[in-house]
């Protein structure tokens, strides 16, 4: 059997718009030059020509296939250069990689989403995907926390979600300002405000490791079973192909076996929150 597809070669994508989300976060709208689609929760490697690439889960709807949006926090070398790119520039895309959210498994259920910080990017894509199939879902509740109100991205998203039938969205910040009208406190406190039918519910957790750890602990305390909790894990995903070894977490390649895992799959893997 001879394969000819080069798994390492990126496809070019034109940057058409850059949206400022917060002082450190921008959303890049890119139009791939070749046919490209992804499943919600899968990730791509987005590259700056000649500089480097980094893994991101697109924040746009998987049902929009002519362009995709990638929300990027300025955190390191590549993302800093990315933040200086202007519309018209060409970027590289490899992927999509890994196992995303199994949306069809959520049919007939309540979906509780616990998000923190930049974790809202993949969650926004999931929310679009869930909206697309909302007739098959019981309800969708988003509980989102950020450090401060200025760190809270996609602000119009919350009012829009609250206007969609079956959807509810709550926000909290660690430190409020005078104009803040949401809750104050860590994101898990929002879970006290919502009513869930435990037997018919699944929970999705996506955010910084510390938030994912305490979010998972709280969900378990609430009575969620290990296989009802979906975690979107993040490591140093480099090749995306289950080969380069940089994202190994126990026996798993996060890039290929994940990035979405149930807690049941990871519960015996040490150091998952590091």
């Amino acid at each position, binding site marked *: 059997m001879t*394969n000819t597809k*080069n798994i390492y*070669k990126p496809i070019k994508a034109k940057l058409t718009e850059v949206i400022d989300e917060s002082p450190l976060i921008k959303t890049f709208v890119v139009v791939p030059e070749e046919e490209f689609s992804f499943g919600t929760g899968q990730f791509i490697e987005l590259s700056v020509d000649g500089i480097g690439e980094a893994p991101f889960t697109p924040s746009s709807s998987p049902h929009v296939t002519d362009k995709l949006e990638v929300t990027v926090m300025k*955190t390191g070398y590549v993302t800093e250069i990315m933040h200086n790119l202007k519309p018209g520039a060409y970027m590289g895309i490899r992927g999509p990689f890994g196992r995303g959210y199994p949306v069809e498994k959520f049919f007939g259920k309540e979906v509780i989403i616990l998000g923190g910080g930049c974790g809202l990017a993949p969650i926004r894509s999931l929310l679009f995907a869930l909206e697309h199939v909302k007739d098959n879902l019981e309800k969708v509740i988003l509980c989102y926390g950020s450090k401060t109100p200025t760190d809270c991205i996609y602000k119009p998203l919350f009012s829009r979600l609250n206007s969609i039938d079956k959807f509810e969205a709550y926000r909290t910040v660690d430190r409020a300002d005078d104009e803040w009208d949401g809750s104050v406190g860590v994101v898990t406190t929002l879970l006290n405000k919502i009513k869930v039918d435990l037997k018919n519910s699944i929970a999705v957790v996506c955010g910084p490791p510390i938030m994912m750890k305490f979010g998972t602990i709280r969900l378990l305390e609430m009575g969620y079973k290990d296989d009802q909790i979906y975690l979107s894990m993040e490591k140093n995903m480099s090749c995306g192909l289950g*080969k380069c*070894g*940089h994202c190994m977490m126990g026996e*798993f390649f996060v890039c290929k076996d994940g990035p979405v895992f149930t807690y049941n799959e990871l519960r015996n893997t040490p150091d998952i929150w590091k």
Partner: protein
Amino acid sequence: MQYLSIKKEEWDKAIEQLLLSYTIFAAVDNEFGIDYEIVSPENVSGISYNKAKPATSLKTFFLPVKENVTSGASLKRQRVIIGAPNCDIQGLKLLDEIYLDKDFYDIFYQERRENTIIISIDCFDKQEHCHCSSYGIKPWSDADADLSVIRTGDLIVLRIITPKGEKFINQFSLVQVLTDKNIISEIDKSHSKAESLLIESNKGLPDYKATGVIVKNADDEIWKKYSTNCVSCGACATICPTCSCFLLIDKPGFEKIKQLDACQYPGFERVAGGEDSLGELPRRFRNRYMCKYVWKPQKFSSIACTGCGRCIEACIGKINKNELFMELAPGRS
């Protein structure tokens, strides 16, 4: 298994002839020891037979240290490798599982595999740190290589293992079926002798499975103790026949350079923002053992340490993994 034979002199001549159509590499015994060289009429008579492993592992032929994986040149000619020991051939099986994975084929690796004929050697002796038998690997190959070659006096004895090997050997017009039972019996004796040597010198060394349990249960003190002399040079991973982690480096024009990497280097798992789960040396050191003896066996069907012992030979800090395993072997305290 059928044995074939050809006179050593005729074999050397035939190899020389084949240089017109193939690039041939062979383990050659030179003043520095045994290692692979490109075969030419000048060194064909120096090809090493029946001796334990070349310094470099077979991996090098399939995973170059650095390659362009977006516009890399393809192999122009078929290659033949003479002298691969069974430990390396078993290591290649793991690389096949990783790089010829059904979801993501590495076309560069695939092309090299398809265009390479592997001729294994039978190890009739052992080097100081050889311990393949402890991990269930024999010091000779009767599967997975394409052919095997043994030297007995002025005869070269061959075993055909795959159709690819058979096709290759059909080019040697003077090869005959070996019927001399004494020679076959001598080969069998040499096999047994090599195995006995390995077993004797590695007495008490836990097997692969038991090593996994030892590694999994080893506490932080063990990793601190054995990593004290580690300078994170990555020689153990570079020389290893199964370590195959890599880094993708971007070049202008959306080109990618794939370069071998190692979890022993600082920053291997560092993410943007600086978090590094393998930031501390003992954690990095432990990671390599966990990967080889615990995680890879959970994920793949092939062994991730073949007992070649090269990591022990290559370590400038003189770290001997087998001392760690012996210290923690069941029944010792």
